[in-house]
Each structure stands twice: as structure tokens, then as C-alpha cells.
């Protein structure tokens, strides 16, 4: 063997000189991976790694988590000091926190005084800690008193929330990742785990390495997950509900359902049965584009499995009938008895790291701890706990985020506070959003990044600390409450969101009379008290206990050692009467469908290396480089017809507007469909429609019609694209 030199120099391998590993939970998606951030002797975060004995990720991390330590110091565009301006077209000037917050509180009070309490809206996020959500809820509901208060979770999870509530009487995903180890059939709807939740995919893959079970993926695109599946159903866009009804039709027709379970734990069976009767596989095949034999086959495999589970993500949620889709999945699992048992579940794979936290504790859709504004008992309980008059609360939830923005457009809402959300990039129809935001008399943007696009329209910018510059909890997709320890001090003069909310509260008379705990653990103990005896009971948790267990799943009542992996194991649901509802779901096709003028379906989605609007991942070179600029997947046959070559720019037009995008020709998409990742500013959302779901008010990003042509001037198109990228 040839070895080369005899005299060898010492081998140099990078040593980051980590002296301490600090425990945290990943701040990107809702998988909830336990992550350790390595700090060097100078206290600088220099490395990230998975926590080896954490049950969720078992030592693994995805590309985003692997570079998460870079967020603290290495990503450009972080805010360091509050910024103020009178008009949005003036330059910002730096201000002290006192000046910025005094001005903010004064403006909120002025607008509310002038136009009414609900004329000032607050739109938050799924990205900050649960303690911060709770505090923001207390501020919004108990101090500011606006009913136009929502989270951006309306863009991703509200269909799941709404569907769970309609079927089971409460929000809360009933299953867990461990279900993969028990299930005998997995059906995935509009979920591309390898790209969106790689760690959950790994958990599934590990389960499949030890025990084979059928995996069926429903997705119009041939995603990586579709290729790894045993069966792929490339359904026509927006027709999942018909497919689900047809599956139920076959199951009932062939007596594969569980009559005992249905009788004992559900209501509404007869109406449901009558409705699905109309959705025979032959009819459904014509609508879904999936042949009837295959529909029957899938129904039989699913129903005959000892335990079967369905997972889904935005393919279901971001639809004009997203809530119905979720209910239909629940229907399927209720008639087959697949709720609350190992391997049997309706498990929504959530988007943001703390989407669950905002659902549980932010009071966006009601009051903290899954309480409702509509219930007098809940209003009184919380008012008493907070020390305010219950009459201060509205008796009905106000507008969703997607209705707040049109209310700004037409002048009912005059002021807005955005917290860690970026509608300029994330909302459909960018031109309309610009027109909306410019109408605001007062816009506060609170974000870790000064260059977040929505800041273009703000009057006050409040620099927030990011992720583990703070301390607190996230809840993941499987209801696991996990901890983020403080890793380092906030960047510059940025402040934890909790500090900002508390400081704003102090500037209102009602806020000064209420208790706002200073640190996260103090807030957590308030939440514990409010959770006692409820479904999301966290009273058995403490920060140390959570860290030791690498996260605990609620319910975890006082005295319990462990959390609970599943809900509804006893078949007792949260509707009055304790039964789940089987709800008949007629399919109403109100999508904008391709026609002669706009002949392509436009679909949007994620890529693994980016998160949401790229304010973080767009600056992490080792993630961003895998898709540094937007692109559109297009079928090569369509490309050939339109004279568009691989790597060229196309011009996209819809009834909303136009955009340019680089084309990637691939057979991953159907000849009449195109796909564009949604992460990039001034790209796909310039043309999307986003019809709202009637129940969840979630936009249907994934279905609209566009026209595609080759950009006439390729260099100009390239320049236009570069001009739209500041990162």
C-alpha cells in the first residue's frame, strides 16, 4: 500500500473549543428536536448538535438545526436598537427603548381612543416561547383589549385546529411519533416529510427498518416522500376531500368499519353515511384523477390494518376546504377506530416550532389554556386570575389574521403590531398586502431582523432577541413541552419578547395594576396553575424536569412522572356528551381552476434548507446555498412547448399580478402544473390567490391558475430577480 510521506505532520482538524453545551429546543419547525449549543470560553455560541438521549430526535438534527448557532452572531440584518419614524417614507432614526415604547403605547391609546378598541390589531407568530405567548395574550386581551388579535398560525395550522375542534371538541393532536413504531399502515396527505420535517421522516424510516408496513402518499407532486412510498396517489390539486369521502364510502360499503367504536364514541353516523354514499370510487376517480381500483385498494388496506394512521401538513391545511379535509381525515380514523391507540391516529404535522404554544396559550382564538371567549365560565375564570373585570373581554372571538388585513385595507383597523411575522413575503397577493400596509396610521414591527421585508412599512421597529438568547418553552407536534435554556445574551440592545410585552404593559394603567412576572419561569408557573385539571395539564412540569426528560408531553398533571403520548385513549372526546362527531362534508369546488388564459395549476411549498420567509436561513450560507434564489419546477414537456429551457427565466402571470422566476425542468410535476417554493420575497406570492377556508380562514396557497411564458429579455429577468433579493 502506498502511504505517502513517512514523516508526518500533526493532523489539523477544526476544534471549536467548546467548553459548555447548553440545552435548547430547535427554533425552526415543530418537530421539537432537542439541541445543544456549544459555547467557547468567551461565551460565544460556536456549535450545534442534537441531544443524544432526546426521544424526539435521538441525537439527529436537520440542516437547519445543524447551523442554528450561527443565528446569534453570524447572520446579518439583526436589529440592535429600536428605530422610529413619523412617516414610512422617512428614514428611521435610532431611539431608546423608553422613547420607542412610550411612543408605541401612546399611539395604541390614541388609535383606540379615536377609532375604538378593535381598531388596533395585533398579529403574532408561532416562533416565540409559550411564556411569551401567554404574556402577549394577557397584554392583548387583558390590557390593550383588542379583539383583532391573531397569530400567523392562521397561515399554516388553523385548518388543523378547526378540524380537531369540529371532530373532537378540542384542539390537540391526539398521536405521537412513537405511533410509527406501532402502525400497520401510514397514509400521508400533502405532507413531504423528507423536505419539511426530516427528523420525523427519519423516525418513520427507522420504524420501517425494523418492521415493514405500507406507506401511502397522496401528493400532486412526485416528492421525495412520494418516491419512497409504497404507493403514490398523484391526486388532482384540491380534490383530497373527494378522495377521503370515497375511502370512507368503500370502507362503509364493504363493512370494513368498526361499528362498535362508532356506536360508543361518535355521533352523526347516519348523516355521514348518507353523504359518503354519494362519493363512490367511480365518481371520485373522475374528480381526483386516481383510478377507482386504487381508491378501493387503499381503503381496504387502511381499514384492514390493525392500527392505521394519517399524517398531513399543508397539502390539506392550505386549501379552500382545509378544515373539511382535516375533519374528513378524522372521520376516516373514527370509523376505523384509529384514534387514541398506538399506531392509530390523526396526526397533523405542524409547521412552526411553537405553533402549538400559540394555539394553547396565546389567547389568539380565545383565552389561555384552550379556553374560549364564547364561554362565560372561561371568561370569569381568567378575569379573576388576572384581576380584571370579565366584561373587559369580548364574548366572541374577533378577526383572523387573514381578515384583519382586509379590515386594514378598508379602514376598520388603523394600527397594527406585527410580532415575528412577515406578511410582506408570506401573504398571498403581495401587491394587495403592500396596498394594505401603507394604509396603516401606525405599524409596529417587532422582529429579530431589521431587514424583515414588512419593516418597509413600519413606524416603529423593536429589535427582538432570537431563540436561545431568551429562555422558555415550545410545544411540538406531539404535544411535547420542551425547554430552551438561555445560551447567550441578546444581540446588541435587542430584548426578549417577554421583556418587550411586560414593558408595554407597564405603559397602560390596567397593565400596571396586573401581575406580569419578570422571568419566563414565573410565567410558566402561572400557566401551570391555569392548566390544572384541563386537557393540556402541565402542572406536573418544571423546567428542570422538562430538561431532564428531554421534553414532556401534556397532559402531565401534578405528581405525574411522565407525560402522555396520546389523547382520547379512553374514547372520551371533548364535545359535550363526550363523543366525537362524524361530520358529513360535501365537496364544493370553488378553486380558481386552470383555463385557456391561465392554463397551469400553481402549487407552493417548502424546501428543506429554508424556513418560512428566509429571514434566518437566507443568511446562513451553508443552508441558503442549496437554493439561493427562487425557482419553479416545470414539466419538460410544457417547457418544450413554451420554448423555455432548463435554467432560463419564465414570466408568470395570474389574475393578481406577475413575477419572474428561474425554471427547473423536471418530471416531478405534472405537465399542467408548476411548483415554486414560497420562501422568497417578491416571487410566488405576487401571483397566488389564497382563497380563505370558511372555517379556519386559512389561505389556499396551493391552488390557483397561472400563465407561464418565457421571459422575453432573459438578462432583464435575471436583473429583476437579483433586485428582489437583499439576502
Amino acid at each position: 500500500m502506498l502511504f505517502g510521506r513517512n514523516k508526518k505532520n500533526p493532523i489539523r482538524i477544526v476544534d471549536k473549543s467548546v467548553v459548555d453545551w447548553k440545552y435548547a429546543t430547535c427554533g425552526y419547525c415543530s418537530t421539537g428536536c432537542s439541541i445543544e449549543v456549544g459555547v467557547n470560553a468567551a461565551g460565544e455560541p460556536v456549535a450545534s448538535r442534537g441531544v443524544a438521549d432526546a426521544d424526539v430526535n435521538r441525537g439527529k438534527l436537520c440542516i437547519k438545526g445543524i447551523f442554528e448557532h450561527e443565528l446569534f452572531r453570524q447572520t446579518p440584518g439583526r436589529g440592535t436598537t429600536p428605530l422610529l419614524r413619523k412617516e414610512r417614507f422617512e428614514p428611521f432614526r435610532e431611539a431608546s427603548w423608553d422613547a420607542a415604547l412610550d411612543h408605541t403605547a401612546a399611539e395604541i391609546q390614541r388609535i383606540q381612543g379615536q377609532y375604538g378598541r378593535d381598531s388596533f390589531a395585533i398579529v403574532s407568530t408561532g416562533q416565540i416561547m409559550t411564556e411569551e405567548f401567554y404574556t402577549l395574550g394577557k397584554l392583548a386581551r387583558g390590557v390593550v383589549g383588542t379583539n383583532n388579535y391573531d397569530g400567523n398560525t392562521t397561515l399554516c395550522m388553523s385548518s388543523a385546529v378547526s378540524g380537531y375542534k369540529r371532530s373532537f371538541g378540542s384542539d390537540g393532536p391526539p398521536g405521537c411519533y412513537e405511533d410509527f413504531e406501532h402502525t400497520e399502515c401510514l397514509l400521508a396527505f400533502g405532507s413531504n416529510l423528507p423536505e419539511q420535517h426530516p427528523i420525523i421522516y427519519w423516525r418513520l424510516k427507522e420504524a420501517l427498518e425494523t418492521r415493514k408496513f405500507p406507506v401511502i402518499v397522496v401528493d400532486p407532486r412526485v416528492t421525495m416522500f412520494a418516491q419512497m412510498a409504497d404507493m403514490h396517489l398523484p391526486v388532482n390539486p384540491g380534490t383530497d376531500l373527494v378522495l377521503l369521502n370515497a375511502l370512507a364510502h368503500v370502507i362503509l360499503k364493504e363493512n370494513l368499519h368498526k361499528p362498535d367504536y362508532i356506536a360508543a364514541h361518535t355521533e352523526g353516523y347516519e348523516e355521514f353515511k348518507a353523504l359518503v354514499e354519494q362519493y363512490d370510487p367511480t365518481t371520485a376517480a373522475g374528480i381526483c384523477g386516481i383510478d377507482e381500483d386504487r381508491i378501493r385498494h387503499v381503503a381496504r388496506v387502511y381499514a384492514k390494518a390493525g392500527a392505521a394512521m394519517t399524517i398531513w401538513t399543508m397539502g390539506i391545511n392550505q386549501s379552500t376546504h382545509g378544515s373539511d379535509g382535516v375533519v374528513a381525515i378524522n372521520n376516516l380514523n373514527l370509523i376505523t377506530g384509529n384514534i387514541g391507540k398506538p399506531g392509530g391516529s390523526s396526526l397533523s404535522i405542524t409547521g412552526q416550532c411553537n405553533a402549538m404554544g400559540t394555539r394553547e396559550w396565546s389567547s389568539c382564538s380565545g383565552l389561555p389554556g384552550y379556553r374560549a371567549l364564547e364561554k362565560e365560565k372561561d371568561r370569569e375564570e381568567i378575569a379573576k386570575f388576572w384581576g380584571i373585570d370579565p366584561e373587559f373581554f369580548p364574548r366572541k372571538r374577533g378577526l383572523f389574521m387573514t381578515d384583519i388585513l382586509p379590515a386594514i385595507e378598508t379602514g376598520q383597523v388603523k394600527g397594527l403590531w406585527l410580532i415575528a411575522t412577515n406578511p410582506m413575503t408570506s401573504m398571498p397577493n403581495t401587491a394587495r398586502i403592500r396596498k394594505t400596509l401603507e394604509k396603516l396610521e401606525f405599524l409596529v414591527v417587532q422582529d429579530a431582523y431589521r431587514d424583515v421585508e414588512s419593516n418597509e412599512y413600519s413606524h416603529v421597529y423593536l429589535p427582538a432577541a432570537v431563540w436561545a438568547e431568551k429562555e422558555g418553552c415550545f410545544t411540538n407536534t406531539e404535544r411535547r413541552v420542551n425547554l430552551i435554556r438561555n445560551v447567550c445574551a441578546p444581540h446588541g440592545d435587542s430584548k426578549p419578547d417577554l421583556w418587550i410585552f411586560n414593558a408595554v404593559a407597564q405603559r397602560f394603567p390596567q397593565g400596571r395594576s396586573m401581575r406580569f412576572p419578570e422571568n419566563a419561569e414565573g410565567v410558566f408557573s402561572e400557566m401551570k396553575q391555569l392548566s390544572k385539571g384541563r386537557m393540556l395539564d402541565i402542572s406536573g412540569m418544571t423546567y428542570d424536569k422538562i430538561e431532564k426528560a428531554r421534553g414532556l408531553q401534556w397532559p402531565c398533571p401534578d405528581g405525574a412522572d411522565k407525560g402522555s403520548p396520546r389523547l382520547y385513549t379512553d374514547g372520551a372526546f371533548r364535545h359535550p356528551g363526550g363523543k366525537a362527531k362524524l361530520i358529513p362534508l360535501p365537496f364544493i369546488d370553488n378553486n380558481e381552476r386552470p383555463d385557456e388564459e391561465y392554463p397551469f395549476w400553481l402549487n407552493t411549498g417548502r424546501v428543506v434548507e429554508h424556513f418560512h420567509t428566509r429571514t434566518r436561513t437566507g443568511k446562513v450560507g451553508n443552508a441558503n446555498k442549496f437554493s439561493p434564489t427562487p425557482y419553479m419546477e416545470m414539466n419538460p414537456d410544457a417547457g418544450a412547448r413554451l420554448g423555455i429551457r432548463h435554467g432560463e427565466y419564465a414570466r408568470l402571470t395570474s389574475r393578481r399580478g406577475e413575477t419572474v422566476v428561474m425554471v427547473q425542468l423536471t418530471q416531478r410535476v405534472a405537465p399542467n402544473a408548476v411548483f415554486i417554493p414560497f420562501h422568497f420575497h417578491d416571487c410566488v406570492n405576487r401571483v397566488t390567490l389564497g382563497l380563505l377556508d370558511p372555517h379556519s380562514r386559512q389561505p389556499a396557497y396551493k391552488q390557483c391558475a397561472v400563465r407561464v411564458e418565457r421571459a422575453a429579455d432573459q438578462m432583464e429577468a435575471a436583473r429583476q430577480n437579483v433586485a428582489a433579493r437583499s439576502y
Partner: protein
Amino acid sequence: MFRPRSREQSYAFVPDVSHPVANRYGQPIETVPEGHALRGKSLNINSDAAIGNNPNRYKQHGFFFTADNCIACHACEAACSEKNDLPPHIAFRSVGYVEGGSWPSYQRLNISMACNHCDDPVCLKGCPTRAYTKFAEYGAVLQDPDICFGCGYCTWVCPYNAPQLDPLAGHVSKCNMCVDRLEVGLKPACAAACLAGALDFGIIETRPENRAQAETRIPGFPTPEITHPNIRFQQTKSLPREMTRPDSMPIRYVRDPRNGDAHVSQAQDAGRARGWGLKKLSTRENPIAVFTLLSQAVAGAFALLFLAPYFGVSLLAAETHPIAHPALLFGLIGAQTFALVLSTLHLGRPHRFYRAFNNLRWSPVSREVAGLAVFYNLLGLYAVIAAAPMLTAWLAPATVATVTGAIGWATAVAGLAAIYLMYRAYCIPARPFWNHWQALSSFFGSVLTLGALTLAALDVALTLVAGRAFAGVSAYLAWPMVAGLVLEGAGLVFHARDMKRQGGESAASDQIQTTDFGYTYYARNALLALSGVLMVVLTFTQAQGLPGLVLWLVVALFTLGASIVGRLLFYALVIPTTMPGAFFWKNRGFEEHARAVGLARMPQVGVVQANH
């Protein structure tokens, strides 16, 4: 020693399993036997003298890639870049893919590739500085950036794109097999990070649990015959007949019944438009193009000058041209100096140029540089003796003549030998476009044509300066010029034929030659032929006077132009047998675009703005 995580999971440890004695190529898996001098030594990682406790320390390890399972989630690449603290534009491991079929029966095959720590490490052999070492420990091939001077030759010879030349740092670096982790029994960071049950690691010729195959080929992976790479594959899913690459390389992979139904690379016949490709003609190898042409001209000019008397020709002889003769010699030295300076400045770390001789035993680059150094020094000696007769005045004239003659012969031979060694440096299996005798015919064609042209130019200039009329170019120079052109032309004819026949990357290069660079290529060929014909006509007709001078001048310019363009094409056209890239990452087409439109100005795009 590397500190493992507390309560590390079992997947992260390299399994201690039994293995065959030798690998499939007959190489023992045990790198050195018990009692060998290389045993029991510390790897000295960051000067830590400790010795790892891995029970299989002296066994060849390698990656195992289950291509069936890879989802292209980038976790392996990210784990690698995080551990090695790499800037975005550098990656020791990259995931590319090929795809095929038609919606919805579409399939994408992802390939994660780093260094394969080969049995026959061509990087180690090729490196002139001996920056590479294959260690008895794990059979790891490691590279030391502190020794490297950034010539990039290893990046030419490696078929897998493993060595990474960093244009900003000016040196190469590569996968280090995470030997620090191996010392404590842990798999490399990439394998431990895999999220799909695709990338694994262990003793070579062993299979991870649940894996049925251990193949050496998958579509997109170059032939293992070049280096005997230490990687094994499982790929059991049926693949479409034809797979294409998402990057700009015009290569596809087609199932070949003559090759056991394995996918072989073919040129992508995408109906590329014919153009001049002038912008792409300029590459980062421009200095090397000039360096080779100048060196060949100098070697040729000297040989022709020195050999003239042996053919009974009086050409620029010292006796008739007491000033011009030594001036010419020093002119040649000047040209060669310029060429050497250019090639040195082309290094990432020019101040380490002296390391070029460190690997005479294996490296064609070391030998090329050594050949040129010998030639250069002999040429100097010859020039000094010729220019300063007083230095040898104390010797008998006959002795001087003998010594001068001997040095002259040695110089001429050394020059030609250096050009041969230069050609040897291009015999690279991973670069099939170069790996052909056409490189030899082109280099020696230039020796003849440019060497003779140089002397002819000077000869004619002297004639004109002396006020005499142009009386044609000496046949002694004209015929070598013609011969050089014929040699070049013949090489090109056979080269084009063979490239088409070889298929794969060779045919793809040929296709680009006749499409993207089509007009340039055909214009060069026409110039070459026209120059040859004109030279013959002008020599036979003994063209004289102003018309003769003008015609010869035109021919000279044609010849020079054809030579320069031909050499630029030589560098611009080579398509290495590297791994497929992705749509953005490792896509040369996107990199060029990003530079052209300014995307590359953002460092997080991962494309270095300047190409040089």
C-alpha cells in the same frame, strides 16, 4: 481526543464486525500487519499525542451508501461543514442527483459523495508537494493544507471531485474521514447525521445491517477502475432507462445492455445551438495555456536553432549574428521565465513554489516542473557561454566547442523531454478529453510550429533591419512549421473521432466543441488547414518581396491565432468524470450565471465572485 456526546446512540458507533481478508481488488483490508513500524503511533490530531482505542484502527474503512434511501436532505453535507467549519463555497461532501421517468412515474436518485479514501489515491500520486498521506490508520487519505501550494492538480485527477480548491484561501482541503471521531469509535459526522438510512460507514467490504448489496457502481458514479475507491453502494430499486443531470453538464446516463444493463454516461443530445463561445473560452487555466505555449515555443526554437548547423543551415548563428544570437538566447530565457512566473502565480500559494519538486517519484507535475527546471538552467548556461566567450577563453577552442556542443545537445534534449513530461501531466483518466495522444501531438506540434515561427520572425526581422529585401522563409524553418501543423491537424482528426467513439464525457466534450464553441472550433480548424496549405505554397513558390512578406505575415498570424485558440479550447472543453451536481449547488452553469448577474456578490449564495 474527541469527546463523544453523553449517552450517544448506537447508530453513531462504527460496528466491530468480521470482514474478509482482502477487498474485491485483492488489497488486504488490514493496512499494515501486526508489528509493522506504522503501528502504535499517534495520529497527532491537533498535536494530541494520545492513541485512539478503536479496535479496527489498522483496517481500511469506507463509506456505504444506500442510494435507494437518500432523500437529499443535506444533513450529511451540513454536519460535515459544521464540524469542519467550512465557508459556504467549500464542501467536503456534496449531494447531487440524476433523475428520470415521466410524471408521475418519476424517479430521482440522489448521490452523496465525499472522498473515497481510495486504494490507489491518484490525488496522493499527483500532488507535487506531497500534501497527501494515506494513513495506516483506517486507510484514510488525508491532505495537509499547510503543505499544499494550491496548484489544483489533485482536483484534476480525482474522479469524484473530492479535493476542494478554495480560490479565496489559495489551497486545497478535503474530507478527513473524521479520524478524530474514529479514534473514539464514532462514525464520521456525515454518516452519523444521515436522516434516511442512506449514508453509513464501516470496515470496507462489510455491509450495514439490513443491506443486501455492496456494489461499486451506481448511475452517475465514475468507473471505480481508476482509483479503487473505498465506497460501496446499495441500489436495488428499478431505475428508468435514461437518467439526466440537473446541472449544466451535457451528460446523461443510459442503461446499456452491453454493460450488464448498468447505466453508462452518454452525451446529452439536447440540440444545443452552435455558437462562438468566446466568453467561455477564457478559463482560470488561461495562465497555464500561455505557459504551455511559451514553453513549447522556447523548447522548439532552441532545438531548431541549435540543430541548424547539423543540417548545414546557417541560421542566426553566433558567427554571423554576434549580437542577435545571444540576444535570441536571452530572449528565450526571458520568455521561459515569463512562462514560469505565470504558472507560479497561477498557484494559490505562489510563495511555496519550491515545493513543486517534492514528489518526483509519483507526481507528473513534479516531473514536468523538474524537466523544465533542467532545461531552463541548461539554457541559461548555454546562453552565458555563448554571450561571454571570455569566460571560456582559458580553455582550448576545441574543448570549448565540445563543451558547448554537449551543453547544447543536453539543452535541446531537456527541452523536448520537458515538453513530453508536460504531456504526461495531462494523461488523466478522470479527464478523458485530455487523456489522448492528441495532447502529445498538439504539444509537439506547437514545439515545431511555434519554435520555427519564432526563429523565422527574428530571421526575417534581421533581414529587414539590415535593409535587405525579404527573400522568403528558410525551408529549414518552413517545413517544421508545416510538419507541426500537420501533426496538430492529424491529432485533432483522430481525437475528434475517438472522443465520439468513447462516448460519455469524451463525447460530451466533443459535442460542446462542435456546438457551444462550434464556430470557434471550425474556424480554428480552417485556419490550421489554410495556414498549412499557404505555407507549402509560399515555400514552393519561394514567395519574395513585399507580397511574399505580407502573405507570410498573414500565415504567421493565422498560425499563432490557431495555436492560441486551440490551446484555450483544450482547457475550456474538458469535462471531468465528476459526480452529478444539483440544480444550484455544484452546477457550473448556475455558478457562471450567479457571477454574471451579481447573485454571487452575496457570500451566502456559495459562489465565489471572482473565478481566479
